[in-house]
């Protein structure tokens, strides 16, 4: 067992650094840094994904036959850490990490041939149709209905918290195709073209002032039966597979480390009298506490990936734990950043996108996103299964009752 990199791994690290130096322009970095929402703004993330695609690095987790990078654990880790610390945007997980693996595993050959290259090249932008106004944590109670009519399903209902639905051209959705049996059994997994007549999108502004999520309405929306993935009524199990894949492949500690470095940077600028805030004993202890929490999460993620690579199942305890801790640590970082702002936490800038504003901002660029990030960041412990749901999952595995 060894943490140190081999000569090959060091060579890869140098290759990554050279790539970032060449392609991660100040403009891209600035656009990413000035985006206070949870995900990168679609144009920013998409542009970055196209650059990665050209290098063959768009899909670290995909098998090589589908255009994946074919990276080892160490390469994956090096990439995540280097790109996060360099301030690179994140690419949307909706295609590459969510619907892509489901199509790969359960889709028809025609679906694979059509969708997978488009995901890889960032030609399609996907959104996720899971939650509904009446179905949050209890997702299986979802009511958006797909009724068979010849070669089509006719869909009626509504989805909510749909990230980037206002930008996406495609949605993967869980819809109800039957009321028979258990509520999980009547659900199907379907791919919807967002241009289909009958779809309307209502923006929902978050407390940080960002337009990231939406409510989507379906009014007699006709979707070809050929757009269903896998068998009718099996959608729940595909949705669960998607979640396992997503959580199992998470390597979020690099981004947390980048976010912490940013807080350290602003804590070095802000002063309490003559003293830089970073020298305040209370602040420096909190910085250490977060750093230690990131170290623990990083090691947990490396352990999960290591067991995945040797064909062992890391178990749902560790994947729920990684989600839980990532979200809690992210919130601790954003909260610390707001405390560093002090009096400046009063300043509110409602205009978006910040990176396109051409006049002076009311705060320094490196401080202006702290407050909206903190506010938007309250969502981390809610989306993707709340912290309470994660604890339910862990308890069920550990207790077995």
């Amino acid at each position, binding site marked *: 067992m060894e943490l140190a990199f081999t000569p090959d791994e060091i060579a890869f690290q140098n290759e990554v650094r050279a790539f970032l130096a060449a392609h991660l322009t100040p403009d891209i970095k600035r656009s990413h840094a000035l985006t206070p929402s949870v995900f990168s703004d679609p144009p920013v993330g998409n542009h970055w994904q196209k650059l990665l695609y050209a290098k063959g690095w768009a899909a670290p987790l995909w098998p090589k036959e589908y255009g994946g990078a074919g990276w080892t654990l160490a390469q994956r880790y090096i990439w995540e850490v280097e790109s996060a610390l360099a301030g690179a945007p994140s690419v949307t997980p909706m295609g590459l990490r969510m619907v892509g693996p489901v199509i790969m595993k359960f889709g028809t050959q025609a679906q694979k041939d059509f969708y997978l290259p488009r995901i890889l090249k960032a030609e399609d932008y996907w959104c996720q149709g899971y939650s509904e106004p009446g179905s949050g944590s209890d997702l299986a109670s979802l009511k958006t209905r797909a009724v068979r009519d010849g070669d089509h399903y006719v869909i009626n209902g509504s989805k909510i918290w749909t990230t980037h639905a206002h930008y996406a051209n495609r949605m993967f959705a869980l819809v109800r195709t039957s009321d028979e049996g258990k509520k999980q059994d009547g659900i199907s997994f379907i791919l919807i073209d967002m241009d289909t007549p009958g779809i309307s999108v209502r923006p929902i502004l978050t407390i940080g002032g960002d337009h990231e999520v939406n409510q989507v309405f379906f009014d007699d929306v006709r979707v070809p039966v050929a757009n269903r993935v896998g068998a009718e009524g099996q959608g729940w199990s595909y949705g669960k597979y998607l979640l396992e894949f997503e959580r199992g492949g998470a390597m979020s500690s690099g981004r947390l480390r980048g976010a912490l470095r940013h807080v350290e940077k602003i804590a070095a600028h802000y002063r309490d009298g003559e003293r830089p805030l970073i020298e305040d004993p209370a602040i420096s202890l909190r910085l250490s506490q977060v*750093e230690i929490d990131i170290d623990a999460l990083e090691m947990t993620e490396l352990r999960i990936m*290591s067991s995945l690579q040797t064909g062992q199942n890391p178990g749902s305890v560790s994947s729920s734990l990684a989600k839980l*801790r990532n979200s809690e640590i992210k919130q601790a970082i954003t909260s610390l950043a707001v405390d560093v702002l002090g009096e400046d936490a009063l300043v509110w800038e409602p205009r978006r996108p910040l990176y396109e504003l051409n006049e002076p901002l009311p705060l320094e660029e490196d401080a202006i996103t702290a407050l909206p990030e903190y506010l938007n960041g309250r969502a981390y412990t809610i989306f993707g299964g709340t912290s309470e749901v994660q604890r339910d999952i862990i308890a069920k595995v550990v207790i077995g009752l």
Partner: protein
Amino acid sequence: MNLGYSDEQRLLSESANNLLAARAQKKDARDLWAEMAELGWLAMPLPESHDGLGQGAVDVAILTEAFGRHLASTDYAPRIVLCGGLVAAIGSDAQKAALLPALATGMAKPALAHAEENARHDRAHVATQAARTAGGWRLSGDKIGVLGAAPDRFIVSARIAGSLRDRSGIGLFLVPADARGLRVLSHATVDGGQASRIELKDVELPADALLGANENAFEALDRAVDQAIAAWCAECVGLMEAATAATVDYTKIRIQFGKPLAVNQALRHRIADMSIQCEEGRSMALRAALYADSADAGARARAISGAWAKIAKSARFVAEQAIQLHGGMGVTNELDIGMYLKRVVALEAIVGGADRHLRRHAALSAAARAA
């Protein structure tokens, strides 16, 4: 980078856990120390040049994790990792030859006498004085928290030069248990072990009593203590997992209000939190072990204090909640659930609490930023 355990490491874990589980069932188990010597466990981290096996901190952690799981609160870390590590690191050839093979066979039972009143885990706090004499050295001072039952000799830290809490000017002296002027006051420890306070009053020592003739032993001492902490981190992981498992079993069979305790969501979430602490503790203990032998002293110290800051808190939480979820029985000696907490309290007293190590981590981080 490679984070997989080898087949040998898996086997070591299995045999250590099996052996300790079997011993717990036996009334007339043999002396554990002798058994460990036979199995080669005592030789594991000692250098191959002196009858050791030259194994690293990850292997030691596999062993101490098993100690924690089975509450086999042995003298392993203080005797083998601390004393053995110090002699191997800075001892002269003669000192190594005299001590290391005897440690491996279980014959030698040294104890490190370093901590003092008011040191509060500052490792450079050494008030005990070493004065040069015509024939060698004269030591005077008091030591506390000297771990282990019936030591046959002590490795005593004493100040040769400098003032209290200076890192330079600290030497380590080999002092036989029957030295004149040495008074050993043994006491029981909270976790069921043995330790002592010792008083040195004008203890005369030969010149070669100074370990490795090294008058600046702080760096070696700091490293050995960090390595022992890595071993204790792993012990806490075993201990936390055992306490959590016992708690899960209990809440499943204990019926109140007509149903098992374990169906209540408040308790389920508590158990989830205990499991989370176990997993994070496992990650941090592994991290500590992977850094324990690092040549980069700053990185090592930061990783070790970071791990302990996390694990001390986690282990305290898990051990306290294990008692809470066992209800009134948890507070009694009729169950051994309280033993987990006692061991955690002992380790915090030995190593320092989470706050102490968080401060050390923050100071090291500030130094790294300034560099």
